[in-house]
């Protein structure tokens, strides 16, 4: 890839990557720090990859790992039971990940805050699963990125959606 191509890739990938990392870490500064570090490592080894094809996936995988490690180091366990009713695996209600991404929804401030709060209450792996799915990654790719068996991805995703749904339903009753 040319230097101009690298720059274009960087500018394209950065905002989404920072938003994702910020959501996983809970802090913009931590998110930016992790993204910058991951991008540097990726660029240093760019001769091994085709950044145009795989760069974004590799970046998100590396961000996910870094955020999981950060959370592990900080030891901030999240109590899933706070969200209520999220312990059962339930039927695997995994949406068809090959389907086109749903259109963007115009968020009200209240809804945005509620989503941020709901996501923040999820364990970081669950948060990663639901966010990566929303960005269009398939379960097979999620399994690689989260370093879990493919079947377990479905469990994680189902729990994450269920917990977030429970949280949002409480905030926005019928």
């Amino acid at each position, binding site marked *: 890839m040319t230097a101009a191509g690298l720059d274009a890739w960087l*500018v394209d990938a950065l905002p989404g990557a*920072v938003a994702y990392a910020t*959501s996983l870490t809970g802090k913009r500064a931590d998110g930016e720090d992790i993204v910058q570090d991951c991008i540097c490592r990726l660029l240093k080894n760019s001769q091994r990859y085709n950044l145009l094809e795989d760069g974004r996936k590799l970046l998100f995988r590396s961000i996910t790992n870094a955020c999981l490690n950060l959370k592990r180091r900080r030891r901030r366990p999240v109590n899933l039971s706070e969200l209520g009713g999220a312990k059962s695996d339930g039927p695997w209600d995994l949406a068809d990940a090959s389907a086109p991404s749903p*259109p963007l929804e115009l968020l009200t401030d209240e809804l945005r805050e509620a989503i941020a709060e709901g996501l923040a209450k999820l364990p970081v792996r669950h948060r990663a699963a639901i*966010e990566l799915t929303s960005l269009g990654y398939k379960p097979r790719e999620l399994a690689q990125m989260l370093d879990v068996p493919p079947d377990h991805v479905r469990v994680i995703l189902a729990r994450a959606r269920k917990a977030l749904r429970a949280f949002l339903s409480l905030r926005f009753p019928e």
Partner: protein
Amino acid sequence: MSDSSKFSDDRIDSLVRSYLADDSGAVDTAANARAVQQRLAQSTVADVIGIRRRHFRKAVRWAMSIAAVLLVGAGTAYFALGPKPTSAYSIMTAASAAITPDSDRCYRIEIASRGNRFKKHPILRNIDGSLLWTRGDRFRVTPDKTEGTLNMGQDDRRKFWVVCSENLGLSYNPGEVPQILAVARSVLNLDLEKLAKQFLEQYSFDFEEAGPDDGADTIVLRATALPNRPRLAIDNARLTIERRTNVIRKMELSRMADGEPLGTITFTLVSAEPQPASSYRLQHHLGPKAEILDREQSEERAKALRELLAP
């Protein structure tokens, strides 16, 4: 089940995606890209060359040919126009390399009086004019002519100590230091090697014009924290570096605490005379029969500190 709900799986995915897209819009892409480039610049030259070599060998050959032509022109300009310009970052790198962690250095401490929260700190408010000796993470403050300055320091085992009198000293293990002393320790622990490394990793550099107090043949740099580094204890710094030796002669550090400016503290190099290693230990500053209060006498130690700091 879930899809009949107001928040179906598709809706949840859509909301999360919208939320991330919304937040992406608030990201300062340019600042982050600059930070990435700066981090990359700090990597070894070999790394950078390695990244490009495999993909751009042909381009490199062309570039080298063009560069050779340009070099001839640049060389002419070099000799015609004077010294080769050097980046502020490379000067800071040279200053960092010139630091010898096992050397003793003595700095005079100055605290500006106006708008400085240091002035409210019971220990730091009296520290103006004192001398700070450092060797790596060891340090000791020698009261100069200022009354009320504590004789204190940190030894090679990172024990913080305070001299109450010739016959009494207080010793604290790293985890025991009371907050009032911890703030002073944080401000005075001038581990140059770590500080320079932190500057190189997390700050950007610009040249500043040297003032009359900066001494002859010096370069002045302004180090500014890269964007979104709220946790840094130093917001920005003015560094005066000796051109010939790359030694940092003066540092004006704008300290932060809890995201708020704490004040500016200036360290000016006054001596690099070797000191005995024992001078960084508490015992060196006490009489032969002195008592040292440590964790075993924590109540007496706390009482002695209260008395020492009482107005």
